[in-house]
């Protein structure tokens, strides 16, 4: 059994800029959530989510020791930094846009999130 859930329930995220590239780090809330995200939250999935909003490819790096995934979204910041006309020219809240992504999450992963909450 699975449920359609927003990424914000499985992980938290932070982001920033590297020139015109938005750098979004997704930190899973539990080990099960990390395993699930490693499988399902691919660079392709993220590119789909931001379709029409970014001008370049998406790369993914895995940080198993932190249970985190790091995404590089090229051409996401309208030139970036001082050149961009965007409110979020430095991509500081780009992470929050990714947390809207909806995924089909199996029940056991959802259960692990509830369990983990007490310990953090």
């Amino acid at each position: 059994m699975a449920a359609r859930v927003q990424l914000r329930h499985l992980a938290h995220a932070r982001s920033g800029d590297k020139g015109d590239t938005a750098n979004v780090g997704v930190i899973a809330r539990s080990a099960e959530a990390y395993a699930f995200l490693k499988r399902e939250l691919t660079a392709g999935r993220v590119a789909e989510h931001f379709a029409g909003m970014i001008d370049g490819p998406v790369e993914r790096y895995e940080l198993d020791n932190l249970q985190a995934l790091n995404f590089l979204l090229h051409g996401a910041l309208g030139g970036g930094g001082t050149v961009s006309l965007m409110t979020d020219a430095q991509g500081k809240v780009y992470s929050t846009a990714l947390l809207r992504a909806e995924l089909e999450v199996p029940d056991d992963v959802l259960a692990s999130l509830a369990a983990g909450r007490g310990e953090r």
Partner: protein
Amino acid sequence: MLDRATGALRRLGRQCIGAIWRLGYASRFFAAVLMRSGTSFRRFRLVIKEIYFAGVLSLIIIIVSGLFVGMVLGLQGYETLQRYGSAEAVGTLVYAWPDAVAKAQKADAVLRERLDRLGLVFDEVRTEYVGWNATHGPLAGPPPEDLAEVELRVAVKSEDKAPVERFTREIAPLILSGPPGVTGFAGGRPRVQDIVAYWPALIDRSAIEPGIEVEVVEV
């Protein structure tokens, strides 16, 4: 090991010998010049006059031409640096309930039409609605119902300062000639800002000498 110890000594010796050699060479050259300019010493006064004429008096010419060349360089340089790079400006207005978003969108349409009619060309014109979609763009979906207010934010940039400057004067007229229920303009006309782009790059770590300095200051 002995080699390394004597290495410094040998280097020092080489430097001294080099200095003495150069001194000797210059002295011999000077002596040769003096020997061949014997006749000039018979008319010493004339020689001095000649030196004065060719050297001291031409100083004025050098200063005057230098001044003019410098002035031209300065003017041209200023002209180039003035136009160097792009300029940008951001205009904002806050539209209040009711129909805050609809009014803000109408104001944006009016503004863009104005810019078109004025024949102003920009590298980019970007509209965002703070409170609705400024951070998430299309992912924010349709605007929420009954927003208390929304900020219309229009940003432009161009390599030419003139259209950007002209744009900054098109925000205030929207207050009286655009949709009602608008505020947030007490800041006055937006400022034209020079864009100085930065280019992040990687540098080989061997080029950096790391160090830590600790300073204790009593306050």
